[in-house]
């Protein structure tokens, strides 16, 4: 991965809070990361960790009443305030989105050709039908959809084909950045593998950076260049995917990898407890109540992001800095809060 190119997207201290009846839910709470051109960044974590909110927040697709703050730089230029009108104009042309359920994104009454025409003309009014067809067939070919089907209706396609269609629709304007939110969750195993292969091949055909949100760690290992592990609204570990999977540095990443059932699973292991309530997250490190290595300092002070030997950035007191740990802070946290199965499930 070359680092010479300018970052496509650079996010600093992004926060997305929702108002709920019980108070503000800090779904994304101080997230920073960079995305390089043509890179696929996997975003993983349990549900309720803010993955989807982060993805939608970056595209300005948030419900009314949500609070967004932070700096987003896109292709070197500071972005207009997220959720502003100017931001929305970038959607589709520069920022794309792929959703979990493809059929909800396709209009059953419109031919595929009309979908493409509408998408292209929304940003480039007056483009001829012929040029739209040319651009569309180009992306459809990469997605493995035969050009004979260009005039078909969405219902004439199978589930996997529909997801390829929505990817093609997101790509036809050649956006520089796409958020794919669990794009394969609704699909079958073999079709999922096909789609993952297509996404992994994208960087060869298009110059698009992808934020791939998934709960399937195998997909990340298979398709992503880098991975960000999210827990309770924060990125706790981010780095080269191979590196993170080979030697995870944050206890949460370690536990997440260990609890995943794969072909080589010989015994079950799991993380006690469940992700915290985002309205009232635990003090200090948000993972400390579930962490097997929790220390005293973890319960009181939020950890500092730190670059570790493998090159990944980790938020965990185990990696220091020593100078900021108060005296005695390194002692193991004996009184781990009682975790009954009731809370976890």
């Amino acid at each position, binding site marked *: 991965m070359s680092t010479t190119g300018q970052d496509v997207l650079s996010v600093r201290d992004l*926060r997305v*809070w*929702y108002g*709920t*009846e019980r108070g*503000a839910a800090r779904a994304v709470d101080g997230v920073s990361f960079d995305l390089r051109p043509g890179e696929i960044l996997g975003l993983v974590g349990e549900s309720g960790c803010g993955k989807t909110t982060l993805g939608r927040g970056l595209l300005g697709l948030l419900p*009314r*009443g949500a*609070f967004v*703050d932070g700096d987003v730089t896109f292709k070197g230029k500071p972005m207009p305030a997220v959720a502003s009108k100017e931001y929305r104009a970038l959607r589709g042309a520069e920022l794309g989105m792929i959703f979990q359920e493809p059929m909800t994104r396709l209009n059953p009454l419109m031919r595929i050709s009309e979908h493409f025409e509408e998408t292209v003309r929304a940003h480039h009014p007056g483009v001829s039908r012929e040029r739209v067809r040319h651009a569309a067939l180009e992306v459809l070919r990469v997605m493995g959809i035969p050009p004979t089907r260009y005039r078909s209706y969405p219902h004439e396609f199978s589930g996997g084909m529909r997801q390829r269609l929505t990817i093609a629709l997101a790509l036809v304007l050649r956006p520089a950045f796409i958020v794919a939110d669990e794009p394969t969750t609704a699909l079958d195993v073999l079709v999922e593998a096909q789609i993952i292969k297509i996404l992994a091949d994208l960087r060869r055909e298009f110059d698009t950076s992808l934020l791939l949100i998934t709960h399937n760690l195998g997909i990340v290992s298979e398709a992503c260049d880098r991975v960000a592990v999210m827990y309770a609204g924060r990125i706790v570990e981010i780095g080269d995917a191979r590196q993170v999977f080979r030697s995870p540095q944050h206890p949460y990443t370690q536990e997440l990898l260990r609890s995943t059932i794969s072909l080589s699973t010989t015994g079950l292991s799991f993380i006690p407890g469940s992700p915290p309530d985002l309205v009232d997250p635990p003090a200090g490190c948000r993972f400390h109540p579930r962490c097997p290595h929790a220390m005293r300092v973890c319960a009181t002070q939020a950890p500092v992001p730190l670059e570790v030997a493998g090159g990944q950035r980790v938020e965990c007191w185990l990696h220091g800095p020593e100078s900021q740990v108060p005296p005695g802070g390194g002692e193991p946290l004996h009184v781990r809060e009682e975790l009954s199965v009731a809370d976890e499930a």
Partner: protein
Amino acid sequence: MAVMRRVLAPFRETVGFSRWMLLAGIVIVAFFVVLAVGAEWIAPYGYAQKSADGVDFPKLAEPGGDHLLGTDRLFFDVWSRVVWGARTALEVIVLAVAGSMILGLALGLVSGYVGGWFDRILVLVMDALYAFPPLLLAIVFGFLLADKIGAGVVSAALSLTVVYLPQYFRVVRNSTISARESTYVEAARALGAPGRTVITRYLFGNVIHSVPVIGTLNAADALGTLAALGFLGLGIQPTDGADWGFDLSRALDDASSGIWWTGVFSGAAIVLLITGLTLVGEGLNETINPVLRKKRLQKIRREETIR
């Protein structure tokens, strides 16, 4: 218990215009309920009373004096007729709505769950009923019932029940059919639950929520139909009870001779109660229907986010 909680939950969540609609409707309806319940005390005379203390009422007396809203050509006290009319109207509406609701719910549940020929025949019958103009249907049934049980509150309520039954049936049957395919119903069958249990314990609680809205909307409609029946002389006989529609038809001739008080008040009562019931219905609809409902989302202030 659970059903009540689910039914009542939206009330607490109502906001804005729909809440005002609901409130205004409730106030209007409550006013008539008070009239109906307390008719004995509120109305100075009976609904078919033509004299008091041995003195006959004057015919077509102007409002004022002994008769607050005057008397009509049958020597009845108009104010008393309006008050007693509220009782008749509410009795008929409550009976008719409750009847069609209960019957429609039961038939809809069974028809939707059992399916097959039973369902087809019922749907056919209900659709046929639905296709008739409501008034025509009510007239036909009013005639038939008047023969059998007399033209009283019960027969009026029964003929209205028939008119509104298909609406409940259709709504309940449709939601039963979709609920029947849900996993929890399949799960209940997997547990070994017989059909009766599935209907009462698994389907009932999940299809009932659509019924109250139709109930209130229908109530307004039913009042209109009842008034029309009365206007045509097929409603309640003046000696059996006060009927606003009947009074209105009697007042027709008076209107041309400058006698306004015999018609205006019963007419206004009809309009007001229909308005009240409609407001309640629409208010409920906006509250209960999740598509129309505006949920309260708290706004976050910037200061809160700075730690």
